């Protein structure tokens, strides 16, 4: 059975940062990802990142992904396995991976340390006919348009005015697709004003205290009924409006994709501020199990910028725990922690900081 110093599960921003950082500490690494290509959600993000230069501000997500992939191709101690799903981590230290055409080949590998950076899955919303073709998660719409150049539909209702809802609406417009409206159940827009303003300037209405009630259609979405809601999220009768759309895009939040951590037996906690069940961890991203580290959305829903820094922390410290100290270990670890503090030093991140406090061992 092949053995590795570190196996990183998930090739998104957190996993890429963890793998490259650990590789620079001379660890030999396997990076496993279930997608067709590395990059996770970065490969569909056409907008420029915020933050400071250390966190790639001013660079588009898609270019950040390419930079990482390019960097990895020069690091001979990272092996890549795409289209492969890590399915379990067992008492004897074996990680099982499904590979090949539709996952019909099982392989076993043995990591000395495991970094789980599996990201998140999109939340569903309950409404009539929410299973009809034409109802998409926001990530899927981004994949179709921005990665493969495929038009998901002609006229879209966006559900959710957080950053994802706002950014994807703008990307739909860039692709020449009509956005009929954005509905948001909360009384205010959750995303940054800079994104909301762009949308409003283009004349797209953003309805707050409003949600979708029903989708109509036989084989696929043909129209949608939206409706205002009161403070208790009940529909207000008589406020229904029908919009003619063929696509519903759901941007109603994400949940940490933590199955592997549950299965491996990490101590878990439900933390609303982090959007679901997460593994408890120390400040260096080590879980309750000494050989398992976490980074990115699986540790709590946040942004790609902080996911990358968490990945760097996990990679640096997982390697250090094997005696593979980076020559500037202390300096780098302090710098990464300082960057995280900076990224979280704003109003929006207050609840995240509160959540992380609860999740810290």
């Amino acid at each position, binding site marked *: 059975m092949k053995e590795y110093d570190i196996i990183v599960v998930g090739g998104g921003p957190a996993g890429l940062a963890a793998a490259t950082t650990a590789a620079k500490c001379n660890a030999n690494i396997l990076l496993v990802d*279930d*997608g*067709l290509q590395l990059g996770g959600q970065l490969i569909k993000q*056409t907008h420029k990142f915020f933050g400071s230069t250390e966190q790639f501000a001013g660079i*588009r997500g*898609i270019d950040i992904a390419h930079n990482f992939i390019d960097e990895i191709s020069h690091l001979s101690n990272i092996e890549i396995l795409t*289209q492969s*799903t890590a399915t379990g981590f067992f008492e004897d230290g074996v990680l099982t991976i499904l590979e090949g*055409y*539709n996952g019909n080949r099982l392989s076993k590998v043995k990591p000395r340390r495991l970094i789980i950076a599996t990201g998140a*899955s*999109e939340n569903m919303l309950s409404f009539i006919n929410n*299973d*009809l*073709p*034409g*109802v*998409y*998660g926001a*990530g*899927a719409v981004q*994949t*179709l*348009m*921005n990665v*493969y*150049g*495929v*038009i*998901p539909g002609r006229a879209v209702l966006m559900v959710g005015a957080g950053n994802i809802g706002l950014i994807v609406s703008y990307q739909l417009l*860039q*692709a*020449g697709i009509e956005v009929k409206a954005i509905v948001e159940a909360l009384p205010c827009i959750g995303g940054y004003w800079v994104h909301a303003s762009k949308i409003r300037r283009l004349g797209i209405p953003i309805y707050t205290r409003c949600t979708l009630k029903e989708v109509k259609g036989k*084989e*696929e979405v043909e129209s949608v009924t939206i409706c205002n809601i009161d403070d208790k999220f009940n529909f207000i009768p008589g406020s229904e409006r029908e919009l003619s759309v063929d696509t519903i895009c759901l941007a109603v939040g994400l949940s940490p*994709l933590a199955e592997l951590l549950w299965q491996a037996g990490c101590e878990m906690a439900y933390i609303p501020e982090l959007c679901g069940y997460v593994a408890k961890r120390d400040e260096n991203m080590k879980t309750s199990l000494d050989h398992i580290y976490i980074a990115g959305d699986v540790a709590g829903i946040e942004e790609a910028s902080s996911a990358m820094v968490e990945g760097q922390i996990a990679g640096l410290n997982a390697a250090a725990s094997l005696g593979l100290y980076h020559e500037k270990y202390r300096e780098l670890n302090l710098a990464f922690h300082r960057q995280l503090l900076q990224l979280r030093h704003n109003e929006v991140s207050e609840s995240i900081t509160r959540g992380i406090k609860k999740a810290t061992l």
Partner: protein
Amino acid sequence: MRIQEHPILHFKPGKKVSFIFEGKKMEGYLDEPIAAALVAAGIKVLSYSRKLKRPRGFFCAIGNCSSCLMKVNGIPNVRTCITRLEEGMIIERQC
């Protein structure tokens, strides 16, 4: 349908390949996900649910949700959103 012009992105698709969907010959690009090729060809219904025969379409695009499971070259339950299109594939709805 496909995006013809985009202010930021330039799409460099692979070579054109043909495949069979429900007995009909169709075209897509090599190595794009099967489900993306189908959506581009105007196919929104990818399967029908087992019990109530409700139509199922593309939903998550990252292999998590099971909404895009189809029969590919006779193999059922292929996650078509993360399986690459190849020349001559035979793709069927499953129910």
